[in-house]
Each structure stands twice: as C-alpha cells, then as structure tokens.
C-alpha cells in the first residue's frame, strides 16, 4: 500500500516535471526545397522523462533522410515534433504536421501517444509507421505498420531463436505475473515453445510486491534440471536472479528479451556474472557487420553518442518508407491519402535489409516479420551472436 502510494506520488512528480518541459520544438528539416520532396512527419518525446527515446528516433531518422537525399533519387523532408510522451500533445503535433502538408508519419515513438494518434491517422487515411511503439493495439488499423516486434511476439521470437539455434531443450521461466509486458511475453513463449519441442521444466512467477527474494524460484529452476532460464523481465530483477543463481551454483544459461537491455549499466553490479547472458535485442552497436558499423560511426560523428535501438529502428523506418515509396511509385505531388493507399499495398510486397533485422517483411496487419537477433554479453559488452 505504502509502495503503491509512493509510486503514485513519484508519477505525479514526474508528470509535473514533464509538464514543465516547455515549448515543443519544431525541428530538423534536412532536405531540398519543399514541393519536390516527400514530406515525412515524426512525433516523439524530445523533452521530459522519455526524451532519450524521442531524440534517438529523431537523430536516426534525420541521418537516414540525409543519406537518402545525398543519393539522389527520391527526396525526403523530415519534420519532427515533440509530444513529451503525452497523448494530447501528440495529437496537437499530428495536427500541426497535417497543416505542414505531411504525406507519411514516422511515429509515434512511444506507445501511449501512438494509441491516441493511430485512430486519427486511420480516419485521415494517413500512412503510419512506428519505429518503436510495441503494443499490439498500435497497428489495429490497416494504415499502421511497426518496425519493432510487438511485445508478445518477442516471446515467439525468443522460443524460435532458442529452438533454431539449439541453445537448450529444457527451459525454466521466471517472470513477473503482475506486469503486462512480462506475462504477455511469457504466455506467447510457452505456446511457441510447445510447438517447437522445447520442454518447460519450471514455470515460476513473482509479483511486484515480492521481487527481492528469488531463492525459491531459482532453487526450483535448479532442481528441475533446466539448461536455460528464460527471463522475460526487466534488468533490475534479472540482476537479483542472476546473483541468486550464482550463489546457489546454478549454471544454466540465461536468455531474455529487450527488458534485460540495461544490465550492464546498473551501478555497482558485478558484471562478470553477466558474462554469457543472451538477450533478444534488434540492435547491438558493436555488431561487426558493415551496415551497423557504418551507421554507428556516422551517428557518433554527428551526434557525439552511441546510437541505441531506437535510433536504429528509426533509421530502418525511413529506409522502409523509401523502399515502399519506390515500390508503390509514390511521388512528392501525391496527396497524403493517395500516398497511404500506395504504401499500404507496397508494404506487404517489399523486403528490407535493415540494421534491426535482415529480410524484414510486413503482414497486411502491420506486424513485422524479421529474423530475431540476439546478442551475448562477452567481456562486459554486447556481441552479436
């Protein structure tokens, strides 16, 4: 009870800070004269608590637009608006972008605003491609597509990855049953594991109020003889579980989803324990392939920081729009509704090799189909597997 109240208070505080965030920034048009370029709008939090995501998307998208315009061919113009991770502000931003003459929307970055904006875009027949809003409901309408996996699909992708790479056959799961993200992945993982012939030998839950003592869950995983422990949870509990496994001498390997991204940045953690932890993340900045390396070096040079998954999602998003525009014969003088009709059909026909996955394809539902990528922690850094 106390905790619940303190969370409410903390949320109220965070909200009031976010509300102080100030004027929304209109920014970043890197392109040729308007009229000859296809106008792409972006919406995401550039200020406030989730600013790190919005800025990464904005930077990643701007980098892609710059590259595309330098190549000649189709030209893009990007206008990125701040929504402070607030659904109402996202709607205002969307209306501003429509006034500006937007022909396709890259966004929104975060889930809640996207759930508000998506029905509007459907009513306007405006093409929507979100780089990173991962809820299933975001793509309910037929004009909406995703670059990232939906939350539950991470469960399917994890099971597939484990089965196809022969990582283990006996699997223990420890998940947070009081959290929608965690239990969503857990349910899908279990379904998919059954069809892939993976055996779930232990399936243990914990709840938000009881998430420090994992001795029982780990003990059960250990005595079940699991070769791999699947952790569809956030990194802070994962840290506790990994330490408990070490304490109990449990040597099963560990596999998680994007919630584990952050393990290496926990202050004071003994990162040597994280060696060998595998996680499903669409992007690892130190992957050795040429595409990633060129993206990372350009990004670092331009913005002075290492790109994260959101920047990569946005970069792929812009290239996806490019591929769909080329396929659908979209030109800058078409109106937004005609662009949307062309892109909707084109999206299901294209294949994009991006930073976040080779051979990305889209279903008409808007879900992306791509080979899951996993990274392994080696010598204190992510290494592509």
């Amino acid at each position, binding site marked *: *009870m*106390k*905790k619940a109240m*303190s969370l409410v*208070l*903390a949320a109220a*505080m965070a909200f009031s800070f976010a509300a102080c965030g100030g004027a929304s920034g209109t920014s970043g048009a890197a392109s040729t004269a308007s009229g000859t370029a296809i106008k792409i709008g972006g919406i995401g939090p550039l200020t406030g608590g989730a600013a790190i995501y919005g800025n990464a998307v904005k930077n990643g998208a701007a980098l892609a637009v710059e590259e595309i315009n330098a190549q000649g061919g189709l030209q893009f113009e990007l206008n990125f608006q701040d929504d402070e991770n607030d659904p109402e502000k996202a709607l205002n931003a969307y209306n501003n972008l429509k006034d500006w003459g937007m022909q396709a929307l890259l966004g929104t970055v975060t889930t809640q605003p996207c759930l508000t904006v998506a029905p509007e875009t459907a009513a306007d027949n405006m093409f929507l491609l979100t780089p990173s809003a991962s809820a299933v409901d975001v793509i309910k309408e037929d004009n909406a597509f995703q670059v990232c996996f939906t939350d539950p699909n991470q469960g399917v992708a994890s099971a597939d990855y484990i089965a196809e790479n022969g990582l283990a056959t006996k699997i223990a799961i420890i998940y947070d*049953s009081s959290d929608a993200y965690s239990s969503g992945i857990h349910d899908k993982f279990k379904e998919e594991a059954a069809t892939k012939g993976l055996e779930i030998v232990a399936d*243990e*839950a*914990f*709840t938000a*109020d*009881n998430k*420090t*003592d994992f*001795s*029982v*869950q780990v*003990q*059960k995983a250990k*005595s079940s003889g699991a070769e791999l422990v699947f952790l569809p949870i956030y990194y*802070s509990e994962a*840290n*506790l579980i990994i*330490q408990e496994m070490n*304490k*109990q*001498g449990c040597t099963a390997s560990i596999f998680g989803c994007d919630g584990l991204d952050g393990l290496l940045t*926990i*202050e*004071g*953690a*003994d990162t040597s324990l994280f060696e060998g932890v595998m996680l499903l993340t669409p992007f690892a900045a130190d992957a050795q392939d040429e595409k990633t390396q060129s993206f990372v070096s350009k990004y670092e040079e331009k913005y002075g920081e290492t790109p994260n998954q959101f920047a990569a999602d946005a970069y792929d998003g812009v290239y996806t729009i490019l591929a769909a525009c080329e396929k659908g014969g979209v030109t800058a003088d078409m109106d937004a509704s005609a662009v949307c009709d062309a892109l909707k059909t084109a999206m299901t026909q294209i294949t994009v090799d991006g930073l976040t996955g080779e051979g990305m394809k889209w279903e008409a539902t808007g879900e992306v189909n791509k080979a899951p990528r996993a990274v392994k922690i080696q010598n204190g850094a992510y290494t592509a597997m």
Partner: protein
Amino acid sequence: MEFLSYLINGISLGSVYAIIALGYTMVYGIAKMLNFAHGDVIMVGSYIVFIAVNQMGMPPLLAIIISMALCTLLGIVIERFAYKPLRSASSLAVLITAIGVSYLLQNLALLIWGADPKSFTSVVGLAPVQLAGGRLVISGETIVTIVVSAIIMAGLIFFVNNTKMGRAMLAVSEDKGAAQLMGINVNSTIAMTFAIGSALAAVAGVLLCSAYPTLQPTTGAMPGIKAFTAAVFGGIGSIPGAFVGGILLGVIEIMSKAYISTQLADAIVFAVLIIVLLVRPTGLLGKKISEKV
C-alpha cells in the same frame, strides 16, 4: 534436501525481518508509537554503506560503523524534530507524522540518489558452504544473517534487563509518569531507544542488501511492512516475540512460495497474521496486560 534448503532460506529471510522487527518493537514498547519511518532508515543506512564501499572504496566494516553512526544520528534527529513535539498529542497524530517522515526519507533519497536501482555488493566475504555434494548450498550471507540476528537479540535482552539504561527503558515502558517521579529522564531514555533502533536499522539494511543485492529508494518499504507484521505476529513490545515472529514469517513466506504458489506468498503470510491475531490478539509472545481503571 530441497525442503532443508527452503527452510534455511526461510530462516535467513526471517532473520532479516527479525532484526528490523526488533527496531519496531523496541520503539513501540518504550515510546508506544509505531515508527513507520523505520524501514526507510534501513534504506538510508544501505545507501551510506553503498556509497562508502563502492564510491569511496572504504573497507566494509568501517562503512558499516559509519553507517550505524549516521543512522543513529538520523534516528535521534527524527525523534527530536518530528516525534518529541508530539509527545502529548494523540497517537494518531504521531502515526501520521511517522508516515510523513517515511515519505520524506524516500523522496529525499529519490532526489539525492535517483530512481535507478543500484546493485549492492555483499559485505560478507564468507564462501558458501556446500553440503551433500552441492545439492545443499548455504551462502555466507545466510550464515552471517542468522548469527548476527541471534547475537543482536541476545545482546538486547541483556541490555534491557541488566544495565541501568535498559532498566530505565523498562520503567518508562511500564509507566512514564512514575518513571519520571523516580528520577528517570524520560526524554533522553526515549531518544536512546530511537538511537539503538536506528543503529539496528543500519545493520539490518546491510544484511538485507547483502542477501538481496538491490538498492533503490523504496528498498526499505516492503521489508519494513513485513517486519512490522512480524513484530505484531510475535507480540509487539516483546523482544523475543519480534525475533520469533520474524523467523516464522520468513519461513512461512518461503514455504508458501515453495509448496503453494510463488504468487500467493504474500497473501498467505498476511492471512496467517490475521488468524494469529484472531486467536491471540496480543501476538504469540505478547503479554496480556489488564487495564487498570
């Protein structure tokens, strides 16, 4: 073998609850107030040790002593400025103040140290004991926690029954007015109680975070509530009661996780508390005091 392992884990968790519960029960027994900020003093103590060890590179033992000293100071300051002015106010006012202090500490910690969870490095250097060919592993933290909590309980019982200060505490707990007439300084006795309770909180914090190595501003909240439950369970005001209550609560929690459901453990723990209170309203070892009219 698994049963034994669960039992040991339960006793270990229970020992942490017991040390926290000792702080609750002492303050309640003597000042007749529920110090809800106790759990948050634990959190502050843990942060002090974390900073001293991880950021300033001090040896753990020195860090613990510094943390105990600072927590003692914090306890006295809280008592002086938040509780003492309300000594003659209704107990409800003091209770609300205690909740206020609890939030104050949590939010100060949030401002100073941020919301990111920190990973606490265990201060226990003991290697785990492997029994039965690795099937039963007892961690160093478990052993130290159990031993330390037993020592603290024994020490407290000795202190209360055999020292002048301790006997003054007993006198104040029985009748403040009469104690004052006998020449006991009630205010300094109560301040002393808070000082000891808060020093214990620092030790509890270190043990809690060594066993479950995560540290954030809400770290003390849930263990605080569980330990309060343990204190009531054992009979609030009674030192052996807090110890027994803590251990039992830990064992019940782990056993219900192990054999009933990991999700229902908390519900079961609190259901047991309700049943105990229905049968024995004063708790397991609580004294039944008939009110004099």
